[in-house]
């Protein structure tokens, strides 16, 4: 309970004083040094006073393209302050933060707990006063089996959910044995949508077969990958589908307790999900003997992240729920046998769980009508950057990048030429216009040595300087490295230093080789996926555009 207690103190007093930290540590019997260690790890926790209202402006690539740096300048100028410094009256505190998961509304901001869209410099006044516009989900797609309810139902209304095919999947599940549910999921070929594409059926089978009376279901709603915002849209607009997926998982692996871990930067999604949990308890979709099925008991608790991208890594997320610094664990053992509180755990991403609800409603055969043989089911992509219609795209049949960008998303803003696409996420690759005919399937991307990742398609037009984007990515990974293993702790910093030199046209002799060595060492020797992919975009850019990295030889004259 350490993290919830610290977040509560932060919310009430705008920081965590030594006195409060000491009280919390003693009440929870946590060593005081560890309390400090936890406060220092999470960026939403401060041990010194901040201000009544913190205004956070996203500085990740999509928002940067849309002018977020200018927004910060305008805000601090109007408030007569500097970033990370409270105004003298203690009212405001402005900071630049990594991706807020609202890339389709770039530049995005959070004013206290209120998300703000298009927070451009000219809207600084309304952002300060709190009259700025709140973003809504934008979803496109010819057929939208997965997101059909988004924007249609009242997200917190269980009745509305029931009227729109809600819980139909769960009722099918309750008529089957857990083995049959696993068989259905395997037949459907569902693969995780969080980035690693692990087969969900195999994961659940492992957790179901683990011998332990206590097991957990965890929903990973720590969506923080720059360029990714699909999970936010599902959480805010169709949250019951996620709950239904968790109930299916609980029934299948015999878990009595679950957690949904929603990142701290999604306060609106958290408010919605709290109401969803309350409504579900009221209508016996949570609690004891759920829907009259004797012995089917399941309790669900929502937990908030506190500002750490690494907590999207499943074992780091467990550590955060356990009230520790979000360090990833060594694997094996894997979560299916040694997960949360060292118990067998099934942990799934938001979109994956929504897919479970869909496939259990329509059945695996119908589910496989969507997608391709190797990539069954609908899949969400997040388009952002220099594109006419940024948003979430639900793709249900074989579609190429070219079709997605030019036919569905309206092409580039101002009919500009395409320079590059950041594909899969900040941990993904840069790709060039030559690869536009790539079909957006698991099998085709793998053959091209790419990864769909979390479905990110971030578009850069010909006027953009890729070196600037690389510095932003380098800054992101240096900021988000947890510091546990040396390659990532040291490498993300060394990588950033070199990228900054490159961006300033001041590369030193040997920098290209240094960058390459640092990148491959992180890729090859880091402990977790964060470090192993912290150089992927950089290495891909070096391959495509080596000329960008060449040292500038200044003549002595």
């Amino acid at each position: 309970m350490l993290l919830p207690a610290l977040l509560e103190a932060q919310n009430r007093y705008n920081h965590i004083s030594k006195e409060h930290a000491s009280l919390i540590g003693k009440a929870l019997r946590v060593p005081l040094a560890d309390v400090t260690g936890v406060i220092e790890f999470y960026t939403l926790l401060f041990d010194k006073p901040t201000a009544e209202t913190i205004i956070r402006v996203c500085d990740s690539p999509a928002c940067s393209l849309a002018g977020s740096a200018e927004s910060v300048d305008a805000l601090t100028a109007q408030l007569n302050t500097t970033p990370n410094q409270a105004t003298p009256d203690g009212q405001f505190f402005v900071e630049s933060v990594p991706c807020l998961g609202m890339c389709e509304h770039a530049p995005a901001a959070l004013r206290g707990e209120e998300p703000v869209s298009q927070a451009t410099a000219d809207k600084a006044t309304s952002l300060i006063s709190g009259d700025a516009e709140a973003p809504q989900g934008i979803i496109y797609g010819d057929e939208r089996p997965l997101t059909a309810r988004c924007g249609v139902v009242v997200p917190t209304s269980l009745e509305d959910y029931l009227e729109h095919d809600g819980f139909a999947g769960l009722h099918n599940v309750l008529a089957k044995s857990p083995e049959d549910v696993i068989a259905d999921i395997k037949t459907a070929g569902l693969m995780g949508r969080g980035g690693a594409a692990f087969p969900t059926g195999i994961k659940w089978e492992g957790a179901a077969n683990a011998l332990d009376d206590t097991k957990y279901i965890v929903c990973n709603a720590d969506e923080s990958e720059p360029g990714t915002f699909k999970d936010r849209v599902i959480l805010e607009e169709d949250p019951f589908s996620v709950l239904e997926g968790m109930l299916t998982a609980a029934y299948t692996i015999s878990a009595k307790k679950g957690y949904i871990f929603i990142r701290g930067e999604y306060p609106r999604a958290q408010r919605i999900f709290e109401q969803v949990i309350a409504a579900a308890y009221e209508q016996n979709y949570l609690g004891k003997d759920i829907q009259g099925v004797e012995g089917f008991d399941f309790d669900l608790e929502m937990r908030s992240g506190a500002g750490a991208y690494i907590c999207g890594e499943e074992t780091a997320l467990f550590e955060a729920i356990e009230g520790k610094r979000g360090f990833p664990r060594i694997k094996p053992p894997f979560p299916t046998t040694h997960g949360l509180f060292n118990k067998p755990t099934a942990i799934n991403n938001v979109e994956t769980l929504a897919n479970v609800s869909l496939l259990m409603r329509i059945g695996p055969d119908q589910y496989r009508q969507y997608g391709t043989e190797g990539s069954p089911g609908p899949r969400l992509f997040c388009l952002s950057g220099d594109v006419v219609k940024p948003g979430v795209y639900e793709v249900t049949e074989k579609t190429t990048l070219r079709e997605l960008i030019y036919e569905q998303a309206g092409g580039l803003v101002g009919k500009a030429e395409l320079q590059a696409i950041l594909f899969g996420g900040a941990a993904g690759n840069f790709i060039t216009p030559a690869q536009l005919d790539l079909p957006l399937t698991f099998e085709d991307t793998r053959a091209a040595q790419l990864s769909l990742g979390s479905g990110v398609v971030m578009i850069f037009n010909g006027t953009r300087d890729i070196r600037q984007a690389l510095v932003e990515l380098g800054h992101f990974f240096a900021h988000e490295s947890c510091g546990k293993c040396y390659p990532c702790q040291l490498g993300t910093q060394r990588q950033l230093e070199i990228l900054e030199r490159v961006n300033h046209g001041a590369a030193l002799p040997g920098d290209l080789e240094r960058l390459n060595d640092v990148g491959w060492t992180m890729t090859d020797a880091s402990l977790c996926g964060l470090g192993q992919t912290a150089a992927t975009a950089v290495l891909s850019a070096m391959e495509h555009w080596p000329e960008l990295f060449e040292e500038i030889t200044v003549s002595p004259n």
Partner: protein
Amino acid sequence: MTVKLSIDGKPVSVAEGTTLMEAARKIDVDTPVICYHEATTSEGLCRQCVVEVDGWRVLAPACVTPVSQDMHVHTDSERVQHARRTILEMLNATVDLSQAPDLQIQMDDYQADRQRFPNAQVRDAQVLDDNPFYVRDYEKCVMCWRCVQACGDDLQFTYSLSTGGRGYESKISTFFDAPMPETTCVFCGNCVAVCPSNALVSKTEFFMDQGLNYDQIRQEKRKQRKQMPRK
């Protein structure tokens, strides 16, 4: 159950659950380490003991990777050497390794360029001299976690220290930067004993380095002990 594998082409048979590091020692192959210590829990931090396993996507830390049947392990391949050398070069650009003799030897062994990263920002760290028993010179700290582990569950159960900060700004923290006498520290000295880089150094050694003689050291330490708060 016995597991058979090969290490650097030589067949090895060991019990199930043995780590690659232990298995390699059976054939007199030592993997270099920074964070590893017999007395503390292996957390696979430094990655200096990484080895290459046929068919694996990434390198494996030998200290925590258990053997498996028919594994083919290479402890000194080009990939391994490259990673070890680069880790040493990056670390050397971060902290002061001048009093870490093992790491100096490793840098020679792997032909690490001590000037590999020009203009690198060194880690922001302090020298903390706040008690009569030891000095904490964090400019030399390599973040191996051994002191935190020795202070906590691995040896002393006093929990005065925690890992703090994050990423490159990682550090060893006390509660709100409290000086050691104001923490739960009992001055057992286990943290000093396990420190690999002389970041934690006994007061006697610290004063000797400053050229004080035996009597001066005794007086200096007595003076400081009197200033200690009573627990």
